[in-house]
């Protein structure tokens, strides 16, 4: 069954790699969530709360809209590769 796409995309996976090759488990530990949640956010299967989104952006020392992007046209308009 295909994942249900959200309108929020992100470049967490790329940023993890840029930011010291952080693993999903490392990121989960720093955010205080499960690795499953990090995976779900990366894959666009779960939109985090605004608070967690800010925490993620802060983790990578980036502005929020450098990490997350809201697609008004729908989930097919992928702004991040």
């Amino acid at each position: 069954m295909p994942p249900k796409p959200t309108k929020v995309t992100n470049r967490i996976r790329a940023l993890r790699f840029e930011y010291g090759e952080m693993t999903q488990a490392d990121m989960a530990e720093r955010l205080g969530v499960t690795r499953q949640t990090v995976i779900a956010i990366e894959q666009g299967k779960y939109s985090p709360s605004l608070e967690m989104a800010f925490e993620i952006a802060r983790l990578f020392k980036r502005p929020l809209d450098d990490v997350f992007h809201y697609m008004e046209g729908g989930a097919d308009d992928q702004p991040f590769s």
Partner: protein
Amino acid sequence: MSHELRQPEDDDPVIMTAEQRSVWVYLAVVAITSTAYFAVVVPRALSQPIEDVSWITPMLWAIGVSIVGTIVGSIFGSIGGAIGLAIRGIEPKGQLEGDLRDKDIKKLGDRRSALVSGGAMFGVLVLAMIGADLFWIGNLVFLAGTVGAFVEGVTKILAYRRGF
């Protein structure tokens, strides 16, 4: 996303959190107990007058076994998950316990289940107004509880697997 951005640790197997495991246990237990209940009560209801059907004791057993079975099954599920991680040499920290996503999924499941309960309450009201036998009222509530549990469980499983 390109595969070059995948860390070796990212390929570690993803296991279910304790909450997700509990949802599966809950679904399995409710399926077993409700099937057993209806397997006992429906033949009785078809073979004798409704007011003579003994349904309270089987229902109490079904509810009791559902509660105890879900608690015990969830505990064993969590222990099994931890043992599974240990066997595969994976650090269990951050893999088993619940978090915000689990809470959001729980809220979603509860909301859907509440819709079923609300509809059933209306049905109970109508049955009470027309003076239906207590058999019908009790069993409508039980059926609504069973359907609500399935709606809740399936909603949660889909949210875990497909996202929401």
